């Protein structure tokens, strides 16, 4: 399996605070990798480095063999990386469908074509019945789904998911997990996800990277990582119930 994303020695500080230091990991083509760690560990900052929101202070980020560190977010998107936001950012005044059309327009100039892509994506994510509602009227779980649908409509090869399961009920989480499994299996979509809901991480990820105080403290297969003493200490707790 070839490697799709390589993060090598990435670092980012905000004034004195070292949000991410010397982070190195890889995401193989077609894999689902989980990024976990306590609040404030630097997970979202790491995402933002990959997605082009911030340029890394040090280190390199390569996507499909090409350096993307320092590119703007729109350039990263066009390169084939889609992302969701932990704090959802719907285009509140637009309909659910139009929100997704905006995403689809990155690959085509034609609105009709983008609309066709958006409609398929909408059905797949289970937002079909809500297509003509204004995005502002959606509940939080549906807003999370919209985040995913919009990112998917850009037809990424790598999808960055930032806590899309947070706030979902267990059955909704399972549905979402199924959607991602399906995208991964049938479309070959590679996924890197930040997630606190261990139920989802364990069900999805083939590989887990643990971040703490901006540094990677553990990595490996899910069942090994959750038994790692360092991870138990800082994140999951002694009585981890998984």
């Amino acid at each position, binding site marked *: 399996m070839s490697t799709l994303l390589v993060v090598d020695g990435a670092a980012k500080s905000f004034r004195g605070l070292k949000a991410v230091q010397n982070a190195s990991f890889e995401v193989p083509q077609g894999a689902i990798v989980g990024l976990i760690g306590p609040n404030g560990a630097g997970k979202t900052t790491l995402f933002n480095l990959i*997605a082009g*929101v911030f340029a890394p202070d040090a280190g390199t980020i390569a996507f499909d063999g090409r350096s993307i560190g320092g590119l*703007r*977010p*729109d350039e990263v*998107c*066009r390169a084939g990386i889609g*992302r969701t*936001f932990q704090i959802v*950012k*719907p*285009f*509140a*005044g*637009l309909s659910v469908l*139009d929100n997704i*059309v*905006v*995403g689809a*327009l*990155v690959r085509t*100039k*034609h*609105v009709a074509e*983008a609309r066709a892509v958006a409609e398929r994506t909408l059905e797949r994510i289970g937002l079909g019945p809500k297509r*003509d509602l204004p995005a502002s009227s959606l509940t939080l779980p549906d807003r999370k789904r919209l985040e995913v649908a*919009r*990112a998917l409509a*850009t037809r990424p090869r790598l999808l960055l998911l930032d806590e899309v399961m947070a706030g979902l009920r267990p059955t909704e989480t399972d549905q979402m997990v199924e959607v991602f499994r399906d995208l991964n299996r049938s479309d070959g979509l590679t996924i890197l996800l930040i997630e606190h809901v261990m139920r989802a991480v364990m069900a999805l990820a083939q590989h887990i990277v643990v971040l703490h105080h901006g540094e990677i403290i553990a990595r490996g297969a899910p069942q090994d990582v959750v038994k790692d003493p360092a991870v138990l200490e800082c994140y999951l707790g002694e009585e981890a119930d998984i």
Partner: protein
Amino acid sequence: MNERRALVLLGVLLAVLLVLPAFAGSYLLSVVTLILFFAYTGQAWNVMMGFAGQLSLGHSLYVGVGAYLAAGIFFHYGIGPWAGVWLAIAACVALGCIIGFLAFRFGISGVYFALLTIAFAEFTRIGFDHLQWFGGPGGLFLKVAQRDQVDLANFRGPPTMYYYAILALAAGAFALCAWLLRSRAGFYWQAIRENEEAAQALGINTFRWKMLAVAISSAMTSVSGVFFAFYYNNLFPEQIFHISRSIEIILGPIIGGVGTLFGPVIGAAVLTLLADGITELLAAMGVEVPGIKQVFYGVVLLAVVMFLPNGIWPPLARKLGLSK
């Protein structure tokens, strides 16, 4: 929106406006000309604010520069507005792009962007006070003669000619904006307006698209300036660049409905008719109160903001069965 109904409504409106000069007296014609002028200019402003979410409070800059350039070369060299309008568009797009570049490159947004637009309009006003070629503070006057003959080459003629010209502009701007709103540009502008960070994450080069909005808006507004110069025949920096002029331009779309196609038209009609109506009414009653028009603007704006926060058009469209 129910498209067929909207098209029928537009068709009827256009038909009425086309035959209006046959029935209307010169006073009514001048009022409707004014309405169409504000509808057109409001539509131009709406591209920037209503579609792309970039608040300009200095659109008088483009009206003024467009007006002065076209009038200036006509006054001095006898070059008519068909050439002048291109000069006006080029100059205003350049100005708009300078303002846009300064703001968008250096992350100036929201009210600070609005302040920048005011600043440019203000220092251009002061600049024109000192440009003798344009007449300075004393103003620039185009020769006025009793004209019954239409001289299309120089855009001189009877009021009916100006009426049809501004009607064509307003209708053209409406069609252009309707098309833009359904194109990729429309989707991208609205995405930027709603959430710029999310827009960027979806592959939108926000700088480029915001610049495009400014360029289109300033180009359209400059044409309204050219119309203004040849219709009114006199230009004073203190008037045409004044911030109150910018406010007058944006009140229509705000009251009618920011970001909607019909908003600028409805807003211009409501404001102009009511303002003229109240002036007439007070004159008939023998009351002369200076500034009553402005007080009235204030009251209407207050009422709309309180009771129709999205403007007159959205609830009206629902009533007419044009939208849900």
